[in-house]
């Protein structure tokens, strides 16, 4: 498949990186040096020029492109690119925006702006944060099969009853499948076998129905953090922070937002009625104590700059907040943040890249979650009669698949089927599978 990416920033480069090995990727950017450096790092074709210019798009081969991804830093430019592409090509267009009002228009009117798929960076990041807030100790949560199945990545605390057990011992839940373990200190997921030992400090990846995933979360943290987060403090009223508070409000919570700029604070107070807005420096420890941030279940740091977000998250942890989630703009800081004590670092660009990857994958992949830093992915695939699993048990089918794949869950209509070795997969089933990066190409073609 030929993919044309306009915009070689963080998102564009990230998408180019994850698609380059299996697709023909062309990247267009106005900045010649960016294009050049990307061309050295990845096996792609670079074109220097303005993506809204039809001549440049022609040069990049827009007529032959199957997918065009507009991910420049400017949202209006992205929309213009898609509209321009639609004048000469039938390519599937994907655009990234920041404002939710464009998303609202697009959702209300199919094909608006000439965009086939629109992703909103801040909203995606906020949705991710809210899912993590909703599940104690979770590191990442992704919904599959319209929310009937969840993939969750958990930290295993030192004092967890599960720590030190093997997967077979820990797996006491019917509707839950252990798919991978990320050993302490690494970022590479490994397929979980029955005898894999879960070390304290490691992470486990499970797939199951949301209620069981929640029950597992409780079992994991020794029962003392049973309750779902109620008291959430959002430090920093960036767009992501605002949307996070809004989504939490939709779930019936009354989050607090701390924003230092009085005008922005006023704007937030008007825009998010469910939240209490405090206008003060969120990195003032005296203030955090006065407002009882130490009693907060979760603190979300989203101050717009990574330095300040890091500081706020660490301060909140220091005064005693239960968990701290930080928004990180620079993907390369994610690991650092988590190493120094931030529980979860969410990178909006990574989340965006993940979402866009979903539409550029092989035709049947419907939903994708990336685990670790691209070491593995969770896919949702609808089984057709060409699949190696069609009409066979998982045990038989797995023999024809590479070793780096685990079937985590199957949904059949509205029903959930817990996959065991003797489960027969039918045509039309949705299979949620955990796949290691090196097995990806083979798995997507065979499923």
């Amino acid at each position, binding site marked *: 498949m030929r993919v044309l990416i306009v915009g070689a920033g963080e998102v564009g480069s990230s998408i180019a990186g994850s698609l380059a090995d299996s697709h023909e990727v062309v990247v267009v950017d106005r900045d010649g040096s960016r294009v050049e450096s990307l061309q050295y790092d990845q096996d792609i074709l670079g074109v220097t020029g303005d993506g809204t210019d039809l001549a440049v798009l022609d040069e990049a081969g827009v007529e032959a492109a199957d997918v065009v991804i507009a991910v420049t830093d400017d949202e209006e430019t992205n929309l213009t690119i898609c509209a321009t592409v639609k004048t000469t090509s039938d390519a599937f267009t994907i655009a990234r925006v920041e404002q939710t009002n464009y998303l609202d228009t697009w959702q209300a009117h199919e094909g608006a702006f000439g965009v086939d798929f629109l992703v909103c960076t801040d909203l995606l990041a906020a949705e991710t944060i809210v899912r993590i807030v909703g599940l104690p100790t979770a590191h990442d949560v992704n919904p599959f099969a319209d929310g009937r199945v969840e993939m969750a990545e958990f930290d295993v605390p030192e004092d967890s009853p599960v720590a030190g057990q093997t997967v077979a011992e820990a797996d006491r839940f019917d509707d839950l499948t252990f798919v991978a373990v990320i050993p302490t200190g690494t970022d590479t997921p490994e397929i979980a076998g029955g005898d894999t030992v879960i070390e304290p400090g490691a992470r486990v990846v499970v797939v199951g129905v949301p209620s069981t995933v929640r029950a597992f979360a409780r079992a994991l943290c020794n029962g003392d953090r049973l309750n779902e987060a109620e008291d959430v403090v959002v430090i920093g009223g960036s767009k992501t922070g605002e949307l996070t508070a809004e989504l939490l409000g939709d779930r019936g919570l009354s989050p607090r937002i701390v924003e230092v700029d009085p005008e922005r604070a006023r704007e937030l107070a008007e825009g998010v009625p469910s939240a*209490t*807005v405090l*206008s003060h420096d969120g990195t003032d420890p005296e203030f955090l104590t006065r407002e009882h941030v130490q009693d907060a279940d979760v603190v979300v740091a989203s101050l717009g700059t990574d330095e300040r977000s890091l500081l706020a998250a660490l301060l909140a942890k220091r005064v005693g907040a239960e968990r701290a989630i930080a928004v990180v703009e620079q993907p390369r800081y994610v690991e650092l943040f988590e190493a120094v004590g931030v529980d979860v670092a969410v990178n909006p660009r990574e989340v965006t890249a993940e979402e866009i990857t979903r539409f550029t994958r092989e035709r049947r992949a419907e939903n994708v979650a990336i685990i670790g830093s691209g070491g593995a992915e969770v896919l949702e695939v609808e089984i057709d009669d060409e699949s190696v699993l069609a009409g066979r048990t998982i045990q038989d089918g797995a023999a024809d698949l590479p070793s780096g794949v685990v079937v985590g869950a199957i949904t059949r209509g509205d029903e959930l089927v817990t996959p065991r070795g003797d489960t027969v997969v039918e045509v039309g089933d949705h299979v949620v599978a955990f796949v290691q990066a090196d097995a990806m190409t083979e798995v997507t073609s065979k499923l």
Partner: protein
Amino acid sequence: MSLRVDWRASAALVGTVVKWLSVPLLVPLGVSLYYGDGGLAAFVVTIAVALVVGSAMERLGDVENIGSREGFLMVAGTWLAASLVGALPYLVAAHGIPGVAAASAPASTLANPANALFETMSGFTTTGATVLGDISFDTHSHGILLWRQLTQWLGGMGIVVLAVAILPELSVGGAQLMDAEAPGPGIQKLTPRIAETARALWLAYAGITAFEVLLLYGLHIGGYAPNMGLYNAVAHGFTTMATGGFSPEARSIEAFTGVVQWVIVPFMFAAGTNFALIWQALTGDLDALFGDAEFKFYAGVVGTVTALLAGLLFAGPTLEVVVGPVAGEAEVSLRHAAFQAASIVTTTGYASMDFAQWSEPAKYVLFLAIFVGGSAGSTGGAVKMVRWLVIIKSLKRELFTTVHPEAVRPVRLGGRALDEAGVRGIYAFTAVYVALFAFGTVFVAIDSSRIEETLSAIEVMSAVAATLGNVGPGFGMVGPMGSYLPLTNATKLVMVVLMWVGRLEVIPVLVLFTRSYWQG
């Protein structure tokens, strides 16, 4: 020093309104012709004066120069000029024209110019306080008493709103003028053109008035209201929707049957509702009305006051009143409670019985209700619902921010956040309102020592509050069956100013008395 206000332009526009005042004067003129009981000369003279004076004023300046400053002056001037011209029929009827026409109402108390001005200002501002001694056709002609009703109907929706609706030269500056006439929050354009908005408001107003007249006259024809003839039906239609309160019957609505009283209650309630919302409801958007925060609060206040009064009347002591027993009578208690609650809260000022005879607790509930007022954008006066609602909400916020000094919490009205300048304006208005009430009370208390009767504290306070809030009747001497007549001329003129200032919601008039308004 040069004036920064083109007062000539304002005066010219006031002249236009005065000139047009001759048109509604044709109504009592026609009535006088029909009944032939005198008063014809009064209207002929007034129409002539209105035409001549109005046309002369129009030549003073260029209406094109109306800006926001000229707007304030024009609006305040219009109400004063209308009251001065509107007082003429009373004066002519009382004095006659030497050598041309004899006085048609020689016994009228309105022979005193201060009384005539008081009665007219009370009419246009829809106050309903009266200095008419004997309210009957023995003393006054049908035409004069109908003119008294009509002044209230014209003033109800606003003289300036009416001018904007019908005068094409006001199409541009009209929004400013309407704002100056009713500066409360909640004024909204219903249509892109301000003249159409003004027309819509007047159409809804006139339509509901006509509906009420038909209903009242229908009761008469049906035999449920023997004394509610066509004259009375029209007269009361004019003063219900205007939240006016004048009645050609000396005993106000007490003179009519219980059915009539029940029918008038919902019309008074509608008159205290924001007409923009009524218009939206009439054009199909019921949610706009029933979902409105101020309307819900308004309905709650009227309901609460009704419940309180009904309880007090039902349980209360036996009253020596002409309407018969009230205590222990469920329907009677509820009817009089609902009627008085709607009448006083909306600032109409009708009475279905002499509430000045009520027990002390019931009187105090009603006294406090004088300060409440109708909704913004209604014909009601006083402080108005929306202001109280905002004050309550911002006080709640104050309590919250005392504990959380950094909290930023907008005051919300039905989901919409109010800007802080608006909240500040509401506090300023209420503070000035209370100050005017205080000054007025002290003045009237001192000045009334010159009259024969000794006024009690609640009589003085209710008289001042009822004129400032455009309610009308107070308690004691100035009660619903009483009169402001015994007060001194000085007190009456102060009350004329209170009614004028109260109708225009204080600030647009007070601004005329500041140096910065006139200079730079």
